[in-house]
């Protein structure tokens, strides 16, 4: 990895993710920091990223590097954590049962991923699928259910759904641009993960076995 990528590129990518993910557009534009639980989930995500080798922390912080290089590495680690927390926060619904369900889902998923110990490639694929699915569930399915309907029948069905779920499912409908901002922050975050300094892939053990005579 070049010094420019570590010093400029990665901090710019992850700080941009943090900023885009924080933006909530309603009657007014508000920047919302990640909740403490999102920060915990962000730390778990950081852990699995390190565990899988998608991030080699020794290439960011080590006694063999200069103080300035270690400062650059520390910045990358901190902004990666903040961006991870913000990406998870933007994918968790704002209220009700979906908020709790998504939070628990992310928590269990990250613990499960840590237990499964995937390699870099599998982890990146898994994160793309998981975060992408969460995006679709929140910004397409859930908000489609919550959007006020035009026809009387549709409004009635929505009212029935709201009553059956005791108002726990219907969400406040965000500004149309919110989904695009969330998608952009998600994509930039995944690109940032790919750009991280990673461990070289160890060939599978069976390939190292000496061939039988």
């Amino acid at each position, binding site marked *: 990895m070049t*010094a420019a990528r570590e010093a*400029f590129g990665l*901090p710019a990518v992850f*700080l941009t993710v943090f900023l885009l993910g*924080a933006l909530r557009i309603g009657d007014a*534009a508000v920047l919302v920091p990640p909740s403490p639980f999102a920060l915990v989930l962000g730390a778990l995500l950081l852990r699995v990223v390190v565990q899988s080798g998608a991030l080699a922390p020794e290439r960011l912080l080590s006694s063999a590097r200069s103080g300035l*290089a270690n400062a*650059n590495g520390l*910045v990358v680690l901190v902004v990666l954590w903040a961006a991870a927390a913000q990406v998870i926060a933007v994918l968790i619904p704002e209220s009700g049962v979906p908020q709790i369900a998504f939070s628990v889902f992310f928590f269990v998923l990250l613990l499960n991923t840590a237990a499964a110990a995937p390699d870099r490639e599998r982890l990146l694929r898994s994160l793309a699928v998981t975060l992408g699915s969460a995006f679709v569930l929140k910004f397409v399915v859930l908000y489609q259910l919550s959007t006020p309907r035009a026809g009387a029948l549709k409004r009635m069905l929505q009212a029935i759904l709201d009553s059956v779920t005791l108002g726990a499912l219907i969400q406040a409908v965000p500004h149309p641009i919110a989904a695009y901002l969330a998608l952009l922050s998600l994509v930039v975050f995944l690109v940032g993960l790919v750009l991280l300094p990673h461990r070289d892939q160890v060939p599978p053990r069976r390939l190292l076995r000496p061939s039988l005579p």
Partner: protein
Amino acid sequence: MREATTRGLGLAFAVAYAVFVGWLFVRQPQTIAQVTGGLSAAIGTYNVDAQALADGRRFFRNGQFVEARLAFARADPALRDAQTQFYIAYSFYRQGWGRLYHDDLLYTEGLAAIDRALALAPAGRLVVADPDLMMHTAEELKAELEAGVRRDASDFNPLRLLEVRK
């Protein structure tokens, strides 16, 4: 470029970007003008549009308060000038003042504007030496606006009909 230089510049860039993001979280600007104005004010280069301010004061003196506020908004798009915010608050006060009742909505907006003015004034002290005004300090104007939105026994005092708009 030497690696140490790249790393040093990169660190400065990251810190500056992080400070900018932190500033956005604290200030919560609503428009690009507020972002650029806030940044200009931070480095001391923000200027109020003098012509728009003069227009606003002329409208204000003529009792055209809506027009005055439009001109003041043009003069201070980033909401960073204490004196302009004072005039905006004063225009809400004068427009909302009534002999029998005060318009709570306008007074509330006036309170928001005077709070902005006080926050921007050096050491929270703001004096506007305009002979056309009857209140020259932010404290007087704020007290008047607060009294206007407060409900108490003085609201039923018949002598209130003799009060004059300041």
